[in-house]
């Protein structure tokens, strides 16, 4: 792109304002997206990125402000109108029918598809789009069998086939493996090379740095800075803009001094030859002869592409399911094994904390109050339980102190958990899981979807738990997170621990290869 050449913006927003009760979600946002440009919109959760994208896609009507599209005034009453103009959205959560094939899902996006055999006429177009952008897709595959990356590809192809000249991607890399991220970026580059435009919504600085031609940074609904790749993008500069303070902080260099302390510590979590069979499948166990030791004070990162045994590993350690073979020992003992198995409760009592992957469905009960959620996994024990009764006053007192100690933003401890933001839900979970000095902490994608501030707080909490002597198992697909937090990294591929290495020595390329199942 030549900055000297005056280009008419493809999409231009002026003074976009959107208020919700108690929140000014967008406070007069201006945005210009040029043809042939990847324009990153950077901001924390709650900065207004999604609302802004919903405005662009016709899902949300702004209270004030105007939009122009290729020089013409743009008014959108629905996504259908946005699609008709050439605006496509790839949402953070996919809107696909799991039981249908790829082609059937695509046909749903075309009202003009014929009533009979709607998918047939689409196949040539699908093939053309796939070849042009290097998006390989099997039109006959069922969506439920696809990986998140492949599902995203379906959404992208749908938008392209609908004739999108502006593609909006909302946090597109959060579900992707590093290799898939590279593939996505290649597609996007090819797309803008044709003169189309991309709006890339993200809070991942590294990706923005690599991909974006221009960056607009949002904070609390307002534009706080603009940068262009021509002037050079600097990660620290962007982070400062986004958070409003220097984020160097806690996750920085912790040095190798820790390694010695850890080596002297006791083994708090030991998995011996654990096997978990996949239900009703012939392709072998989901987790196969995995052995792993985590010492007190140590953080072991589990890297690997989803579906390689991580969820089974977590389930076994947290007591959500019993291994088909092998043992899980906590502090040298096997909590409630065999017939005495008491499931998750046995592990809780043995001091195993779990920060689950799905924080809104599993981690909290949305309809219950913050106070009750803070007692969710300990309600059967003192101080909450007195015999068969629950001391709700104790629950209330505990919640007051937890809300303060963990800085949970909630109107009251009686507020239903579903009304809290994602970051605050995670704080509730962390407060519950880490407050009792657990011996073993399992954290699964603990910062997925969180903004920078909540992410760094979560990291601090996990580091503090390790500092107090807990063995921490960190499962994450975010390699940066795994490497910056962990003392050791174990890679799962095909249900096996294929490699373990000290995090300080691990290089992302070797990890990436191990994750892909390529023998190291």
């Amino acid at each position: 792109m030549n900055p000297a050449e005056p280009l008419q913006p493809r999409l231009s927003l002026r003074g976009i304002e959107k208020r919700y009760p108690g929140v000014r979600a967008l406070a007069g946002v201006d945005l210009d997206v040029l043809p042939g440009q990847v324009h990153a919109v950077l901001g924390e959760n709650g900065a207004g990125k999604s609302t802004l994208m919903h405005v662009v896609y016709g899902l949300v009507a702004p209270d004030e402000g105007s939009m122009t599209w290729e020089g013409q005034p743009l008014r959108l009453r629905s996504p259908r109108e946005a699609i008709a103009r050439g605006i496509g959205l790839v949402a953070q959560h996919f809107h696909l029918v799991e039981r249908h094939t790829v082609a059937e899902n695509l046909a749903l996006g075309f009202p003009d598809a014929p009533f009979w055999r709607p998918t047939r006429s689409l196949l040539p177009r699908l093939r053309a789009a796939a070849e042009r952008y290097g998006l390989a897709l099997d039109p006959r595959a069922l969506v439920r069998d696809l990986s998140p990356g492949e599902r995203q590809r379906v959404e992208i192809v749908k938008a392209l086939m609908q004739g999108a000249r502006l593609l909006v991607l909302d946090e597109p890399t959060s579900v992707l493996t590093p290799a898939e991220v590279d593939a996505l970026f290649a597609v996007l580059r090819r797309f803008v090379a044709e003169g189309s435009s991309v709006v890339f919504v993200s809070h991942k600085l590294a990706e923005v740095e690599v991909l974006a031609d221009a960056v607009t940074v949002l904070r609390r609904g307002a534009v706080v800075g603009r940068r262009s790749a021509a002037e050079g993008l600097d990660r620290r500069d962007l982070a400062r803009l986004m958070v409003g303070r220097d984020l160097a902080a806690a996750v920085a260099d912790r040095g190798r001094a820790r390694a010695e302390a850890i080596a002297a510590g006791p083994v708090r979590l030991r998995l011996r030859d654990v096997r978990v069979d996949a239900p009703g499948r012939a392709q072998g166990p989901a987790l196969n002869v995995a052995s792993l030791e985590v010492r007190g004070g140590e953080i072991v990162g589990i890297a690997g592409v989803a579906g390689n045994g991580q969820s089974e590993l977590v389930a076994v350690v947290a007591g959500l399911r019993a291994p088909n073979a092998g043992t899980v020992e906590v502090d040298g003992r096997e909590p409630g094994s065999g017939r005495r198995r008491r499931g998750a409760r046995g592990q809780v009592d043995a001091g195993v904390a779990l920060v689950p992957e799905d924080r809104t469905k599993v981690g909290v009960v949305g309809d219950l109050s913050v106070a009750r959620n803070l007692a969710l996994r300990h309600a059967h024990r003192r101080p909450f339980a007195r015999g068969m009764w629950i001391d709700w006053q104790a629950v209330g007192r505990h919640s007051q102190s937890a809300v303060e100690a963990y800085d949970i933003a909630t109107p009251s401890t009686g507020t239903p958990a579903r009304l809290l933001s994602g970051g605050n839900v995670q704080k509730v979970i962390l407060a519950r899981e880490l407050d009792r000095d657990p011996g073993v902490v399992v954290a699964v994608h603990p910062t997925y979807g969180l903004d920078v501030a909540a992410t760094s707080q979560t990291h601090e909490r996990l580091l503090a738990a390790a500092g107090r002597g807990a063995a921490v198992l960190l499962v994450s697909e975010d390699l940066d997170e795994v490497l910056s937090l962990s003392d050791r990294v174990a890679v799962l591929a095909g249900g096996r621990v294929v490699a373990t290495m000290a995090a300080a020595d691990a290089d992302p390329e070797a990890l990436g290869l191990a994750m892909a199942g390529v023998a190291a």
Partner: protein
Amino acid sequence: MIAGLRRRRALHRWEPRADAPAWRVMLVTLGAVAVAALVVTWVFVAYGVAPGEAWATIVRRTLLEPRGLSETVRKAIPLLLAGIGLLLAFRARFWNIGAEGQILAGAIGATAVALFTELPAPLVVPAMFLAGMLAGAAWGAVPALLKARMGVNEIITTLMFNYIALYLVRWLINGPWKARSATGFSYSERFPAEAVLPTLGSTRLHWPTLAIALVLVAVVALLLARSRFGFEVEVLGRSPEAARYAGIDAGRVTLLLAALAAGAAGLAGVGEVAGIHRRLVEPTQLSLGYGYAAILVALLARGKALAVVPAALFLGFVFAAGDVMRVSLRLPSQLPDVVTGLVLLLVVASEPLTRGRWVRRDPAEAAAATAVAPAASPVATHAGEPAPSPEGGG
């Protein structure tokens, strides 16, 4: 009408609420009942009965006369027992619609004790209640086990178990337990005197069952509000995934509460045979659909244990009013079923009203929404849709 609705959507917007205050829930429920009363009034008119007079007769003979009032309360007893059990089951999303069969199973248990055991007289009634409760609990435990172990849908199994219980009773009174004196109708032998429940004065109000029911309501209220079991039921009902994570044994809790619920219904069956019929009779006479009406009791109570008492009394009134309509007003005997159905429909349909309300838009917003081509706003406002949260809905 459509135009009116459109106008309303233009001038008002729907505002969802985080929580429904108790008075609002009560108001909506009473509103639903009032609409049902209006429809019934219309039915009176359609049958050529003067509505004012009809309502006066009904109120007098179900609420004001002592004998009528006792009938209302008497009919509320099985509804109380079955209803409190169902409330408990529904709280954990165990959709037990088998209370009818569990009532019959309880009746069978009580009859077995009354007719075929030789116990000291003071022990007979307690033994009957115990046997009825266990029989009901066993009847309800089978679908719960099937659900916990094999994931079988409890709606189907509990419903089908109603029919098994019904034909079991019919077989018993036509076969092995048939009374020697029975010629036309089938029934069992009459219970001995020590197996009959005392009643209040000359009424048919078998007060021991009422006392048990009220105690049970209080116990369930206490369990739900203060016990670990109550908390587990609540978590399980709202999120099975979170319950598993919280270490709650879903199978155990489901089995326990299904047995409790069914045991309560079984007690209702004991009351009916030992307090009213004094023998095992034709199942459709033994329980006048109390097991199904109890579903409505639990729904009307909206999860609040103590609210089962007014809900059961209300349906007791509907049943008693049905008798009055049939006997005094010569209206068809199906009318009470129509009323129950109406109330059920209206209560379920009015549910959203407890979760939000229409609020007036401010004039500028209303103008933007009504204008055909809004000049000030670039995009027409989505009228009447709940506002999405700033970052929600991805």
